[in-house]
């Protein structure tokens, strides 16, 4: 397109003022949909969390009774601790790992695109597939035991049947799938950097690492915040791995029981919908709090 001064660029952003009712009609289906299937359920869930509701009986109001019951519920305590452990293990290592991978694949070397594609493959399968495949790999007599058997000299390892190992394996499998995904986001961010600044930094004699830390990373604040918040929000909500990969949905002995799984069990196995809704509200508040803290820190880092 030929450039005809700044006018066309500016007008592209200006709204069409005249037939405004059409705009309302165009957005109405989406607005009504989100009102019905996002905002209403949130409000309804808040109400449910204040009631004792089973699947069939409409509930009666119990005030904050469900919330008061949580500290006395050992399952809730276990699930909370397991969730926090999972969140820790599937955020910090993912941030560092995905950033390092992005920096690596941002270098120039032979067969880079091909190797990047191979590295990216874990993003493709749905999480349920990831869980099923790793269930085979982590079978006591499976490929993983064979691989580590070389190193530790032990023939069978109960990766998923040990209360210490099982939660760690949830994290390992999660990070295996998450690191390539977040690497792509880092790479998209790195592609927007101005090469002049980096070159100026290297002319100044700044070391490569220091140059990255002081010159490039600050320009990636938006990407950093996105990677940190997306991975944290996702980790708090983890469900599929603990449901499919672990022994008996959250075992052994509840060592992989996380809040997402507890909500499912309370709601759809014990049919305590009110209590399940209350747990989901607590989970939501935790996610909200951590996200707000991250946004604050992101602003402060200026």
């Amino acid at each position: 397109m030929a450039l005809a001064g700044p006018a066309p660029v500016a007008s592209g952003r200006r709204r069409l003022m005249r037939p405004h009712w059409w705009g309302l009609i165009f957005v109405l289906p989406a607005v009504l949909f989100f009102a019905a299937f996002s905002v209403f359920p949130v409000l309804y869930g808040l109400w449910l969390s204040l009631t004792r509701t089973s699947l069939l009986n409409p509930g009666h109001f119990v005030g904050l009774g469900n919330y008061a019951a949580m500290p006395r519920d050992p399952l809730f305590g276990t699930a909370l601790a397991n969730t926090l452990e999972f969140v820790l293990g599937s955020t910090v290592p993912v941030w560092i790992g995905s950033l390092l991978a992005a920096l690596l694949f941002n270098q120039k070397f032979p067969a880079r695109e091909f190797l990047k594609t191979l590295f990216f493959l874990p993003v493709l399968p749905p999480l349920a597939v990831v869980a099923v495949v790793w269930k085979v790999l982590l079978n006591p007599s499976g490929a993983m035991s064979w691989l580590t058997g070389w190193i530790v000299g032990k023939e069978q390892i109960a990766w998923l049947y040990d209360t210490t190992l099982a939660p760690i394996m949830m994290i390992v499998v999660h990070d295996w799938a998450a690191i390539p995904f977040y690497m792509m986001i880092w790479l998209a961010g790195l592609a927007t950097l101005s090469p002049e600044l980096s070159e100026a930094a290297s002319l100044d004699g700044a070391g490569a690492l220091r140059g990255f830390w002081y010159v490039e990373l600050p320009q990636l604040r938006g990407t950093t915040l996105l990677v940190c918040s997306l991975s944290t929000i996702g980790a708090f909500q983890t469900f599929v791995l603990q449901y499919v990969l672990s022994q008996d949905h959250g075992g052994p002995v509840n060592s992989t029981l996380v809040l997402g799984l507890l909500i499912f069990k309370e709601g759809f196995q014990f049919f305590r919908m009110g209590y399940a809704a209350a747990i989901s509200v607590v989970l939501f508040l935790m996610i909200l709090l951590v996200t707000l803290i991250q946004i604050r820190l992101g602003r402060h880092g200026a």
Partner: protein
Amino acid sequence: MLRWVWFAIALVLACVFAFPLWFMVTSAFKAESEIMAVPIHWLPHHFQWLGQFRLAWRQSPVGRYLLNSFIVAFVQVAVTVFFGALAGFGFAKYRFPLHRFLFFFVISTMMIPFQILIIPLFMEVHALGWGNSYAGLIVPGMMNAFGVFMMRQYAADLPNELLEAGRVDGAGEFHMFLRIVLPLLVPALTSLGILVFIWSWGAFLWPLVVVQDRHLQVLAVGLTDFSQSYSRPPEWGAAMAASTLATLPIAVLFAFFQKYFVRGLTAAAVKG
């Protein structure tokens, strides 16, 4: 040379990360006894052409799961893309009462984690009489706020002159959307469509709770037939065959639309 050092590191990393999928695909063609073989078989020694796939088909209604996954994904992609573009265009190019409030309303739903919706949404869908049905399976995931947000960003960049020209020709506003706006948004619609397909195809928790009838279940949930069999010994070959099938559509999308695929996945990063 430094570039060979990078190459060596990248090679090792790529092999480690790609290995589980290599194992999945090759094991789908192995004999059952080979899958737990020590040392592992990098390639099938007793190549089963479609034996494991047939076994999977016999053990579980895999064909039905596949069909259901495609139905759900197709409807959700079509509706999200069309109404997302319509709403995005409306927000980008028109002024109307409550404009700012409604946009904020839609965007704020992006912040709602699905875990808080699951219980009330289940009750709501049952109250609507959609429990254990395609409607219950499909409708709650038929739109997403990110789609509206993304489409608004792209629609805002469309030149107004083009729209004015459409008006001069006497086209109605909706006609203009169909004839002028949608074709211009095709690259963005493709990225969004691929993204929604991936989300829809991988959805697990919602289908798990809303559907009880196996013949309505989607493949992601149906896969667990093979991993949690309590009554019979697990058939890992069939599990790998079904897993390969469940990955295939995404892999095909990736192979043919790599540019849109990556752009869709990173759209939030670049646009946000």
